[in-house]
């Protein structure tokens, strides 16, 4: 290894590169006759950095605020289930809906069923037999249970799968903008390193 290094040093010492002194002097005069200019690429660099970062940032913010304002209607699925359960619990106080209404007897059976389900674990009384009785009477089928019925027949639940995908679209857009920003930063870093 040492011999290789010595050989390289020797080669450097013996190197013959002739420098034209006229060229050296004329170049110096030529350069000094031009005024030193501000580097143009610095401004371009700053502008490019801002344009790459600013555009996705603005898009992200616009999307965020747009869906922040109108976001409540894009959370219908969970809310509708809760609302329906709350409505079921208070069903006896209100008039029976046309969807479940066949008679006032059916409305009572539904409300009793809901109350019994809620109190079943606490009371363990003969209330367990009441839904069975209801079923036997042919008024309630298993699909007519409140929870199932609201999910399948509610109009808001019907639009649930459609609207539930929208937050994912928003997230995808935000993720895309974020990716653009990250890639932009990486490209800028690389271009800066080259300079």
């Amino acid at each position, binding site marked *: *290894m040492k011999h290789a*290094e010595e050989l*390289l040093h020797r*080669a450097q010492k013996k190197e013959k*590169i002739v420098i034209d002194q006229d060229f*050296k002097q004329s170049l*110096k005069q030529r*350069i*000094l006759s031009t005024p030193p200019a501000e580097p143009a690429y610095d401004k371009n660099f700053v502008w490019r950095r801002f344009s790459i970062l600013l555009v996705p940032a603005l898009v992200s913010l616009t999307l965020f605020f747009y869906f922040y304002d109108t976001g409540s209607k894009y959370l219908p699925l969970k809310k509708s289930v809760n609302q329906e359960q709350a409505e079921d619990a208070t069903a006896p106080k209100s008039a029976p809906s046309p969807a479940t209404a066949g008679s006032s007897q059916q409305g009572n059976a539904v409300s009793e069923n809901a109350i019994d389900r809620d109190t079943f674990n606490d009371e363990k009384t003969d209330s367990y037999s009441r839904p069975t009785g209801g079923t036997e009477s042919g008024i309630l089928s298993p699909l007519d249970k409140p929870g199932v019925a609201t999910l399948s027949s509610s109009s808001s639940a019907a639009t649930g799968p459609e609207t539930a995908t929208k937050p994912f679209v928003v997230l995808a857009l935000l993720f895309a903008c974020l990716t653009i920003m990250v890639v932009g930063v990486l490209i800028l870093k690389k271009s800066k390193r080259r300079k």
Partner: protein
Amino acid sequence: MHPDSTREQFEQIYEQYFDSIYRFVARRVRGEADVQDLVSETFLKIYQHLPAFHPKHEGALRGWLYTIAKNEVYQYFRKQKHVSHTPLEELPEIASTEHIPDLFESEQVSTIVRGLLEKVEAEDREIILLKYFDELANTEIAEVLQITANHVGVRLHRGLQKFKKVLEDHNLHP
């Protein structure tokens, strides 16, 4: 920075570094006209960007100057699409019986060594040239090649091993 102070600073840099920058370019590019063009472009850029240059540490200036020169040379090669710095047919033939002491005394040692360096990979060759021909410190090489000083050490060691292997292949070992 005031224009006059820029002018003075440039004159100082020019006098101090012109020869070494010229040699740096001449080692990599063939043809005096091309070398002079590249050196002109290099110093013009140095002069134009000098007001915006603020050295962070001692020795940063030299690294910066060589970086500008290196970029000019790389840009030239990209335009010319040259791969080899030195056409191999221009190199003198190396006698297989030649040994290191004979080579040391040879007047053509520089040309022969440059020819042998062509057999080393471009990445390793560049670092050897910067270290032994341009006589840059590891930190300055790191600045020029945009790598760490530790990485320079590792790559230099690897390059020397490969160069030694080339010498052995040509029976040019002591």
